[in-house]
């Protein structure tokens, strides 16, 4: 295992607009080669050929010089889980590594997943609400790659993708939102239920029943055909702005609610004193502390600190930390208790003194 894997979390270190509610914005383009079967149906030789062609084209991109390349078939399971926890690869890619790869630019703001659901998934990650910046980055990257690679396109259907839910622009803009106030007051379903009418959709970010799990939601455009990039960004921004406004209004109401304040301080108390803590408990409590940061209860903490902690306490991040502290031995078994202990140690170290 290579220490360079830790660099991949660096995209979390920047701060962004409206970060009290919007954790991050992601834009992605789905692109494919004409005639070659899409990855789900491709033979190994096809996948290899696609990977080679993309790798050669990426060699010519200045932004990717000095960047990172992970050939999933060659990296360990821990490293794949690590990349998934850092939001850089999908769970599908983690499970089916053969002939799949992740290329990241040197500044870690953009990347390419090769042979996921489509031959190429170009993506850009930005902290806070920055859809224009994210979109500009993938447009520039797509334009540069298109000088060398032919992308499957039809004048009628647009960019041709493996699933018809992406056909057209192939653009998915998504925002990871933290909506604790809307979740606590149970207004969330009602609000998110109206998204479909605007061609938008949502899902709980950390699995089902997210209301009880910190209130993280991912909101994204659903429609990719019949609307151009500008229209998609505009609808996206208007929708997210509406949600932010609703969330902030309820936060205002909750800011003097003693029950909520009690929960925030209790969460902080447990996180700074526990000796063993599971991922789930830590995330639930961190979500409350995050709300407290927004209410300016913890002067020495900011949203970036909390976001980094959210990723750092995930199981494979803790495992990688333990392994590397012992010289990168991958064969070493790490017990659950050891992990819970390391997680509690990390949380105490990072949060102590902030209250």
């Amino acid at each position, binding site marked *: 295992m290579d220490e360079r894997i830790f660099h991949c979390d660096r995209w979390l270190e920047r701060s962004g607009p409206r970060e009290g509610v919007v954790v991050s914005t992601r834009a992605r383009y789905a692109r494919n080669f*004409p005639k070659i079967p899409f990855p789900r149906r491709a033979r190994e030789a096809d996948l290899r050929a696609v990977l080679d062609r993309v790798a050669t084209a990426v060699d010519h991109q200045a932004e990717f010089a000095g960047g990172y390349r992970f050939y999933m078939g060659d990296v360990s399971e821990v490293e794949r889980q690590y990349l998934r926890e850092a939001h850089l690869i999908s769970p599908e890619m983690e499970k089916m590594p053969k002939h799949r790869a992740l290329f990241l630019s040197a500044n870690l703001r953009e990347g390419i997943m090769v042979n996921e659901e489509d031959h190429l998934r170009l993506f850009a990650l930005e902290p806070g609400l920055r859809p224009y910046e994210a979109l500009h980055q993938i447009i520039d990257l797509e334009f540069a790659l298109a000088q060398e690679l032919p992308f*499957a396109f039809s004048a009628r259907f647009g960019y041709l993708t493996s699933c018809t839910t992406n056909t057209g622009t192939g653009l998915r803009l998504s925002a990871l939102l933290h909506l604790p106030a809307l979740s606590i007051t149970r207004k969330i379903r009602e609000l998110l*239920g109206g998204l479909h009418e605007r061609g938008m959709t949502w899902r709980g970010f950390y699995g089902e029943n997210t209301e009880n799990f910190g209130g993280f939601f991912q909101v994204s455009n659903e429609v990719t055909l*019949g609307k151009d990039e500008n229209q998609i960004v505009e609808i996206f921004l208007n929708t997210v702005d509406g949600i932010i406004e609703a969330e902030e209004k309820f936060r205002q109401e909750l800011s003097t609610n003693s029950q909520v304040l009690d929960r925030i301080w209790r969460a902080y108390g447990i996180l700074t004193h526990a000796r063993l803590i599971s991922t789930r408990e830590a995330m639930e409590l961190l979500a409350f502390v995050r709300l407290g940061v927004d209410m300016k209860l913890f002067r020495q903490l900011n949203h970036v600190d909390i976001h980094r902690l959210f990723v750092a306490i995930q199981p494979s991040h803790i495992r990688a930390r333990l392994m590397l502290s012992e010289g990168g031995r991958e064969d070493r078994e790490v017990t659950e208790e050891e992990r819970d202990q390391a997680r509690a140690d990390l949380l105490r170290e990072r949060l102590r003194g902030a209250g």
Partner: protein
Amino acid sequence: MDGKLCMICKKAPATVKVSKLVKGTVREVWMCSRCAEKRSRYHKPITPQQLFKTASEVEALLHSLLNKEGESGARRTDDEDRQCPTCGLPLRTYRDTLFLGCSDCYEAFGDVLTRDLLRYHGATFHCGRHPMSQPETVNPVLKLKDLQRRLELAVRREDFELAARLRDEIKRLKAQIQENPSESAPAKKEPS
């Protein structure tokens, strides 16, 4: 909903709940279907003109419908056997999984896809960037609007550091738009 009367005409039983997001508050109004048609843009009976935005969409749909009639029984068995000539994906696999096999499937199953795309996206024609598009397709005027909105919010929240940064960015973007007025024209929509 039991026994509730329409909040508009107060006569007919309410059957429709209209939720609106007004300045961050969810407002609910219960209405009868007749009042809902008049008041809410989402409860209007759909006219054919709304369904088929362009003549070509009507044509595409008619084409697929006409193909379907005539010999519906024969077509079903036909459908079972349809395959993409390039990757060999059977049409029924697409129907089961919603995943296509390769880019040529779009041509091979164009009639079926037209119906599915219309149902999912509300459109059957692409508009947006195409392989010949220059990177500047994103309209800087829209970006300017976004920055100005953010500036307003920053001022309202008294975040003057952010406001100053945004003001600089707006100034830069405005200068850029003045230098290259052609770029600020809306992106060309029809791929040729």
